[in-house]
């Protein structure tokens, strides 16, 4: 069976050109196109392509962040990045030997890249930092693919056994990221209140104390108060001057 390819680029002429090059090469089947990082992730989940040709610089979720999310799919695609000129991204590619193509893309190079296309490994992904340092979304697995949750809609993360629960404006989801990794990545917008809880500063409404001297926080859009550990309470009081 021929490899199935998804084309992702925010610029129409760039997508058009890739498509016609691929048709000429006649080695793969183009099964779809996407114009943004969000769309790319959705389509990758729906269509389950073998290879994604992914533009690095896109508005919203950029190519590198999109690749990180796609790698969480049940059957992650091989990713080949395309870029016109991004010094930083190109350095990261070289260091990691990740497949990438420079625009305007040559047909021979495209053929070679397709022949060698491989899935990204976890260490490779970790070294490829998105152009905007922290991700703008977290991805939760679903029966029908991935659900992207914008960071600014997240109330808190809660760690249980193996998974982390994300509570957001539209409900709850399970993600695979550890609380520690999330805290490292989003440390400026989120604050740890307990060994098992990381809350959004944006939704923090107030901190209260019950008769036993136990602290709780209340978040906007969340009825139940969340317990604050003794150790974190003083830090929290200091940070918010309460």
């Amino acid at each position, binding site marked *: 069976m021929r490899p199935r390819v998804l084309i992702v680029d925010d610029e129409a*002429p760039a997508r058009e050109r890739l498509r016609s090059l691929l048709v000429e090469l006649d080695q793969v089947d183009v099964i779809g196109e996407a114009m943004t990082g969000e769309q790319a992730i959705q389509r990758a989940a729906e269509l389950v392509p073998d290879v994604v040709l992914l533009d690095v610089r896109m508005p919203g979720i950029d190519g590198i962040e999109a690749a990180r999310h796609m790698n969480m799919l049940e059957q992650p695609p091989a990713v080949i990045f395309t870029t016109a*000129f991004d010094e930083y991204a190109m350095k990261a590619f070289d260091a990691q030997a990740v497949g990438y193509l420079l625009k*305007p893309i040559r047909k021979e190079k495209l053929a070679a890249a397709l022949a060698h296309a491989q899935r990204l490994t976890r260490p490779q992904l970790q070294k490829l930092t998105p152009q905007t340092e922290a991700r703008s979304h977290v991805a939760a697995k679903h029966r029908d693919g991935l659900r992207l949750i914008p960071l600014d809609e997240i109330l808190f993360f809660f760690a249980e056994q193996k998974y982390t629960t994300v509570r957001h404006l539209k409900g709850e989801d399970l993600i695979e990221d550890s609380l520690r990794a999330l805290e490292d990545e989003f440390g400026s917008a989120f604050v740890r209140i307990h060994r098992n809880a990381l809350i959004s500063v944006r939704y923090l409404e107030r901190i209260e104390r019950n008769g036993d001297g136990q602290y709780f926080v209340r978040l906007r859009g969340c009825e139940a108060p969340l317990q604050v550990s003794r150790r974190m309470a003083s830090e929290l009081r200091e940070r918010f001057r309460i």
Partner: protein
Amino acid sequence: MSSGSDGADESLYLPDFCTSRAALANVLIVELTALILTLARENGGGGFWTDLSRTSLFLLWIGLAGAGLLCWMRAPLSRQQVGRGSAAVLLLISALIAVISAGAFLVGRTSLVEDAGATSLFPPDLPTFLIRNVSIGFVVTALALRYFYVTHEWRRNIEMEATARVHALQARIRPHFLFNSMNTIASLTRSNPAVAEQAVQDLADLFRANLSDKRDTITFEEEYEVARTYQRIEELRLGTRLHVDWKIDSLPRKALVPGLMLQPLLENAIYHGIEPQPGGGTVTVTGELAGSLITIVVRNPVGDYESEREGNRLALANIRERLGLLYGERGLVKSGRFGNEFIVTLRFPHVEKLNEA
């Protein structure tokens, strides 16, 4: 020699006398002076070599002590302005010459010298000796200072020109734009050769304008045309995501404006303001003439996370430099984020295109 490391504008022009290179130059100056003095005294009576070595010995003392003094005093001296620093150096060297001259005279009076019968090697009369030496020293030092000053200024001019040129180069079209345009054209050559042809012509015009040396002032009409050419290329790539709203009716087409300012500003606005937005946006360019002042304002929407990046500052720094060169105090560049917009304002005096005779 002072390397380019001390980049301050008013750095002292003196070479660093602590280095061996400067010491060598110093010895050379001393020996040449000794030769001139000896030649001037030569009257055919023989004793030329004796006179030369005697004078060299004396002058070397002065030269090396002077270099040592300037090396030691370098830090406080380099904090002075050019005029005061030079005066201080002249004063220091003159005083040094006076002291060494007096020293030499006293040595000549010691019994050691008298016993050896070498009195003739030393000056017989202190006041004449002092006045003559200090005067000669003053003139030679002044000449040397002048020489150092001129070489320093010359070097500094070359450095400044080079920096300005580098800035101008850096402010030119981004590689990002070039490669993306090439990619667009590569795509259009298949799907729409006529548009591809137009795009190649536009790109050529744009680069010609960028490489042109006549970047001082051009008519607003020409400047607008360059920016429009750029806009056409970007529209091919970004499609409906890009809108540019030109509000320039009140600006006379023949007004003289600094060349190649609109295009880099438009490029910044698109790169930082339009491309990062999934839905695109509108760049607004306003140009107006009020009294004798022209004001050009470029505004673009900004996303939440977008900060001022490297390229942005370079283009703005270059425009600021050029407006300063052209209009001095009367040229103004302001830029900053206001709410959800990034706004750049240029203001400079209006000059109608002159009918060249």
